[in-house]
């Protein structure tokens, strides 16, 4: 009893009733937040003949890994993940390299057109992605980039450049110029200071930018849907959608595939969430 009392009396001068209420609200919020995710786990463990059931328990009584086995033997799950990975990594690498260079220019020089460039970068963020789909699809069709890795990788890498430039510029701005000036007095060239001093110091921001680029391409559905149609080119978002689209009996395999995607990506997310948030506020506070 004493333990419980102390538990609720820890902060401020709030009454125990109020404190119980706060915990209760937070517990309900947590339940709402994670229950749908737990349902994925539960459905993925159901045996095939019980996929359609009104059971609400999280670990079903006769749990099996049957769905996972079928996912690998009957579906192209690994292929989807491979396609996504190769497109995404190419995208993020190109995007970050391009953005890190131009962000440096925006941060260190007042060249003619700089302000217009920054406004342009910002305004690209307001263009609805759906609006770009029609021209990009038709141009890609004419250039025969439909059903290629290259078309998607190029399209994705450019779409996240403005945002990366914005984040990186904000971060470069916080690095004192004296560092570079000192190095240049010691005889290093401007590009040398960028490569040897600025880039290593900006490693956290580069990681954030890489992650944003990665997530952006990894989670995309719309562009992939119009650019990729062949079975062996599907990314995981398209593959999952196909599993979903077929008969209800695929529900188990869909859940298994989702779980396998969520675990690494979710882990990465939690690992990096602190930096993600600071990266989001970085540009706005120090812009």
């Amino acid at each position: 009893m004493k333990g419980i009392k102390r538990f609720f009396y820890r902060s401020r001068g709030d009454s125990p009733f109020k404190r119980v209420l706060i915990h209760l609200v937070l517990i309900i919020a947590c339940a709402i937040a994670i229950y749908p995710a737990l349902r994925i786990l539960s459905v993925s463990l159901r045996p095939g003949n019980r996929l359609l059931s009104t059971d609400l328990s999280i670990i079903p009584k006769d749990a099996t890994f049957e769905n996972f086995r079928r996912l690998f033997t009957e579906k192209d799950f690994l292929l989807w993940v491979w396609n996504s990975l190769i497109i995404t990594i190419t995208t993020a690498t190109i995007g970050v390299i391009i953005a890190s260079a131009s962000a440096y220019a925006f941060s260190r020089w007042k060249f003619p057109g700089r302000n217009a460039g920054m406004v342009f970068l910002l305004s690209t963020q307001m263009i609805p992605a759906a609006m770009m789909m029609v021209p990009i699809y038709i141009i890609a069709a004419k250039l025969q980039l439909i059903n290629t890795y290259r078309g998607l990788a190029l399209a994705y890498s450019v779409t996240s450049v403005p945002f990366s430039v914005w984040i990186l510029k904000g971060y470069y701005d916080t690095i004192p110029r004296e560092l570079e000036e000192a190095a240049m007095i010691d005889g290093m060239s401007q590009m040398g200071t960028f490569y040897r001093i600025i880039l290593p110091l900006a490693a956290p921001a580069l990681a954030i930018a890489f992650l944003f680029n990665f997530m952006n391409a990894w989670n995309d559905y719309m562009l992939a849907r119009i650019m990729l149609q062949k079975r062996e080119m599907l990314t995981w978002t398209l593959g999952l959608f196909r599993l979903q689209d077929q008969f209800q009996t695929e529900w188990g395999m869909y859940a298994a595939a989702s779980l396998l995607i969520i675990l690494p990506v979710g882990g990465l997310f939690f690992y990096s969430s602190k930096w993600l948030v600071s990266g989001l506020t970085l540009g706005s506070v120090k812009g």
Partner: protein
Amino acid sequence: MGGLTGKIIAQSLGQVGSTLAFLILVIAVVEVLLYLILGKALKYRYTLPYMLIAPAAIGLALLVIYPIGYEVRLAFSNMSLRSFKNPEFGLDQAWRNFRMIFTQPVLKQAMFFPLFLRTILWTVIQVTSHVVFGMCLALLLHRPMKLRGLYQALIIVPWAIPQVIAVLTWRNEFHFEYGFINIMLTRIGLNAVSWKTNPFWNFAAVNLTNIWLGVPFMMVIILGGLQSISKSYYEAAEIDGASGWKRFRSVTLPLLQPVLTPAIILGTIWTFNLFNVPFLINQYELETSDILVTALFRAAFEYNRYGFAAAFALVIFAILFVFSVVYIKLTGGLKGVYER
């Protein structure tokens, strides 16, 4: 195994490798040219920054500016699946396209203005709920107590799940018989709801899903803002005898402004443009749940009316543009861009 074969791996690596090689070659040529023309011939002092931004500038010109220009051109045509190879261009085609947007159904039945109003309703519902729920949770979490870290980690889960998975999972759970929502509703004695076929409930389903998805992000942003507010303000307010609500109104809200305003503006634009949730939840493609961008996608890729869709896209863009200009005029929001 999983459809992945050595041949596919080799093929994809080859394609990526050749793309990278091509890019490096193009960039190298451009840089050398810039160096020779600006640096050597003209001795221009801003040669280096222009060389640094050249790759991004070229990329954006080819993949953002050129497509927008192409879109304007398409809006002046009657391009569709039938006339894909030889569309007609002309002012009369543009006039026809733009007139059709406002006078005829954009899809089968959905007219432009109901769609527009629904998009506004959707944006208002979403942004308000995200801010209100996010604010409540952030205020609750912004106090010393046990289990705080655990609560925070669990509440962020919807943000951590890839959006497509979250949305498709919700779509499953809106199933009439086997989705957990209807199962729970019937267990507490209510009627099951036909989330997928009833227009009202379908729109509600889209909204519920996106509230679930969007609150954690707003909560994290607000929590970050709360943590940056110095405690001394609250102590001063307390000495002045300000009640809890008063403290919130006159200390918390004004000091949150710098964080809250950009979050709300960005949230508005993102929600207005959001595609995945309204498109994927709406399994039976009810036009009564479409918002402008999903209608645009359907007009282009299900009805294949490319010229018409291009004109439609320009109209949507104009709406966003007006919104942005009004916002910038009201707040001077671009000032931060120029300052350094």
